[in-house]
């Protein structure tokens, strides 16, 4: 594999991720045998920024660009998450000091990782103590408003990592291609939380998509999120048996937006919330093109041996309600 490959921002959810609502991928932690969603109990989330810049990005640039990315998540009208810049620090991210810190670090051994998010969790209570984000200074970075050729857009990558810091896992709403001579490139992504970055120079990752908004609103619902929007739920089966890890995509016919989720338990159940009321088309597909651990903990067996399928009717999402049980049947390859 070569550096010209598309670069994974982060690669895997390394621990449990299943929500009772079976919607989206979130981080979880097992406490006393019970699964808890990993999220901030109190907001605003206070964060520090390291006082060290890199070539082309000063510490002040870093703080400003990170601030814009935090503001983008905070601006989601249906979510209640908020963040607060607490100051500069000489401490590097990754130091378990109880402070959430963003900054550059030289990690040349992580030659396919642009950035990564880490957590410190009190395993006795499930309390999220801190979350750090490191940006790999082995890569060239930019904070230029329109992007900069051959440099990765800091704000785009920060937006993705802050989604993790907030508790979101990866979304599979993206399409890639193999390039001539090797390597992989993102053709398009309908989620900032897609695990593979756009090519250097692109600023396409600065804008949240419907899937990101639904995910963060599901974690931190605000206002009339649950009343104004609706959901689709059901199960995925193959040969009459439920399957785990099938990617279910809801396409909003009127708005052209898409939201994705997965079948997330042994019964094959899935749920997609935060959907606009109205007609949707449902597609189900295997994530057979990806590093499965980008989405699920290693211990889970994800079924990728089936063909893409569609439900044979339009599904209407009711306002403030659920579609009712829908069964998506797939056939093996």
């Amino acid at each position: 594999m070569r550096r010209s490959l598309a670069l994974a921002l982060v690669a895997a959810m390394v621990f449990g991720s299943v929500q009772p609502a079976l919607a989206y991928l979130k981080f979880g932690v097992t406490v006393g045998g019970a699964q808890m969603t990993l999220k901030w109990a109190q907001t605003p989330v206070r964060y520090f920024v390291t006082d060290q810049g890199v070539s082309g990005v000063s510490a002040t640039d870093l703080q400003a660009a990170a601030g814009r990315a935090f503001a983008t998540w905070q601006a989601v009208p249906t979510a209640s998450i908020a963040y607060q810049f607490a100051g500069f620090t000489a401490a590097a991210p990754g130091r378990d000091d109880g402070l959430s810190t963003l900054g550059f670090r030289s990690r040349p051994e992580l030659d396919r990782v642009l950035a990564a998010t880490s957590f410190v969790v009190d395993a006795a209570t499930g309390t999220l103590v801190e979350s750090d984000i490191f940006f790999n200074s082995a890569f060239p970075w930019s904070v230029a408003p329109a992007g900069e050729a051959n440099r990765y857009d800091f704000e785009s990558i920060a937006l993705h990592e802050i989604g993790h810091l907030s508790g979101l896992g990866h979304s599979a709403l993206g399409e890639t291609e193999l390039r001539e001579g090797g390597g992989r490139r993102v053709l398009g992504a309908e989620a900032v939380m897609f695990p593979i970055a756009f090519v250097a120079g692109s600023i396409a990752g600065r804008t949240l998509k419907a899937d990101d908004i639904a995910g963060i609103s599901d974690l931190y619902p605000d206002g009339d999120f649950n009343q104004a929007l609706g959901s689709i739920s059901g199960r995925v089966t193959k040969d009459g048996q439920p399957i785990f890890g099938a990617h279910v995509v809801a396409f909003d016919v009127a708005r052209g937006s898409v939201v994705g989720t997965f079948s997330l338990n042994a019964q094959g159940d899935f749920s997609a919330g935060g959907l606009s009321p109205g007609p949707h088309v449902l597609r189900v597909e295997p994530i057979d093109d990806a590093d499965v651990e980008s989405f699920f903990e290693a211990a889970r067996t994800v079924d990728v041996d089936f063909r893409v399928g569609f439900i044979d009717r339009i599904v209407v999402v009711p306002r403030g309600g659920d579609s009712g049980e829908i069964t998506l049947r797939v056939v093996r390859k």
Partner: protein
Amino acid sequence: MVTLEVESYLKGALGPMLRFRVPGGELGRFRSIVVGAPAFAVDQRVVVFLGARGPSVPYVLGLSQGVFRIVRALDNSGWLVTPPAILPAGAGTVAAGPIVRGDPSRRALPLADFEQRVLALAGGPR
């Protein structure tokens, strides 16, 4: 630190027992979790791609991108590995073009076939 009992090397050799570094861990009641770091369990079979810089403990390349799980076929006919989309079928490179989910030609490979493809990329026999 993760310790593996090595069945075989596809390239290089570091002995029958191999230790490498993975970020994260536990200290007292606190758990450090790095998103993207692979997790391992006793008795799992894996193919790992490792790197090292100088006389140091090896590390797994690209976090979980450097780990491929070996799983038993549903019909117990053998061991399988799901290859990455960028791994060519044989010597040479894969054809350029969009990666299509659900492509019937993309399947888990028998372990021996996976090893042969890696060896072809690595430039020769082990």
